[in-house]
């Protein structure tokens, strides 16, 4: 049986230690003074999606080919894509309209995972408040497109991995193309050879 009141006194000691400790120990005061102090976000941190483009010109370097996989897979269906067409009405491999309604988006990153062209990625910008409930929260292509350099700035590891993968893909494709060209060249060479050496030689 304890002396009555001891439990209460222990509690008072704990709170007093926290009161004094908050002036001395730094790790007790975990609050950040937001506009002045900004948190250093971990690399994996994510807010809303954006589109990556290579090089300088957003339109030219756009990786998106308007395949609409992200539009289909997006759980809350917040992505809206219309494919671009040329003057003849032939579909082009780029979107004419690419909108993301970030008031609906739930930052789940599924669009990033399903994108086969490494085009859509997660941003880390969290200061997106606006006075307009609908208009300014729908991000269109001009607001969504951000350079690969920006992507390297916010997710360095992931971006270099992506670049390496794209590079590998390109090399593979080039190799395939080269092989194909080689094969084609060989074929023509053989044909030429055949033409050069008339059939009678094989007799």
């Amino acid at each position, binding site marked *: 049986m*304890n002396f*009555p009141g001891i439990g209460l006194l*222990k*509690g008072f000691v704990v709170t007093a230690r926290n009161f004094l400790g908050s002036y001395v120990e730094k790790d*007790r005061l975990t609050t950040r003074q937001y506009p002045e102090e900004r948190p250093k976000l*971990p690399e994996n941190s994510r807010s809303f999606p954006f589109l990556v483009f290579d090089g300088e010109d957003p339109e030219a370097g756009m990786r998106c080919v308007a395949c609409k996989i992200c539009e289909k897979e997006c759980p809350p269906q917040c992505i809206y894509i219309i494919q671009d067409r040329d003057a003849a009405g032939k579909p082009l491999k780029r979107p004419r309209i690419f909108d993301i309604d970030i008031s609906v988006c*739930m930052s*789940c*990153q599924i669009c990033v995972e399903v994108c086969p062209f490494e085009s859509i990625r997660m941003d880390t910008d969290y200061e997106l408040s606006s006075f307009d409930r609908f208009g300014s929260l729908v991000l269109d292509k001009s607001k969504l497109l951000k350079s690969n350099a920006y992507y390297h700035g916010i997710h360095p590891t992931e971006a270099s991995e992506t670049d390496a993968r794209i590079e590998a893909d390109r090399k593979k494709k080039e190799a395939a193309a080269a092989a194909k060209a080689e094969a084609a060249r060989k074929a023509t060479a053989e044909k030429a050879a055949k033409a050069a050496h008339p059939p009678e030689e094989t007799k």
Partner: protein
Amino acid sequence: MNVTLDGETVVKLQPVFGYLHRNHEKIAEGNSWLAAVPYTDRLDYICPLTNNWAYTLAVETLAGLEVPERAEYIRIITAELTRLQNHVAFMGFILADMGAWGSALMYAFREREKILDLFEALTGARMMCNYMRFGGCRCDLPSGWLESAGQLVEGFPAFLDEMEALLTGNEILLARLQGVAPLTPERAINGGLSGPILRAAGVDYDIRKVDNYGLYSRFKFRVPRGRVGDCYDRFMIRVLEARESVEILKQALVGIPDGPVVNPKAKQRGFRPPAGEAYGRIEGPKGELGFYLISDGSDRPYRFRVRPPSLINLTLLEELCLGTKIADVMVILGSIDIVLGEVDR
């Protein structure tokens, strides 16, 4: 809740639900299998990672998918961290329900914040993690993560000691909790209670031990259970469970092997499990979290059912509250530890 009072004594109590209802099950049935994962985060938003695990476990049971060993370790680590932060937050919330001006709550959140920082470093989001995938996890641990998790786990018992010094001997807290709404094991089982509440009533039933899902059979840990089943036992069981979680974490952080984190055979996009049905469940921090899935072989679930521990633990609320004082109702509700996102779905 509609509470009928006689003076300060409760004579009738009817919980009223549905203010947070969004028909999660219908949404999931209209989406692909993969797209249901981020929605499970929003069930019990205090502990998203265990929700992810329960759903992926059910899908893996349904499709017969294997999970690589490293992924199982990561799942156990994140689930036990989730349990820690849930139980710690519980200690704070029940004190706030008792009117203790949030000191305990703030200490609890101070520690919880550190765990959430770990989650953010791993998954990219603090609460809506969306981390687990069919047959594994989405990405591997970032470098240095295990070390910082190890540091946190090392320091955690000291924090639990501090909380206990503040709370468990406190005479006012004892008077408020002891003897309030005791529960017999038979009623608890019949009422479908699960998790810490069931064990507080003296029932030795922990799904981690019973089903041996994941790799829990490799870890040495104890399952505490109470003798009285009152609010104080429910409180203490969580404190003890948090200590056991620390033990599991210590073992898991040392023993984690190298390897892939996701089964390469598992297809995430356009995932089509074979037709059939499966019920998968895990021991969530709040109780038995189960998913009942029926597949008709297409790319979206035919039936997607959540067994929400928070809702079913409320079954006996009226029984527990009858005859108590109105102030006890808050404490009893707090001791059941519900999250409304899961109750109403």
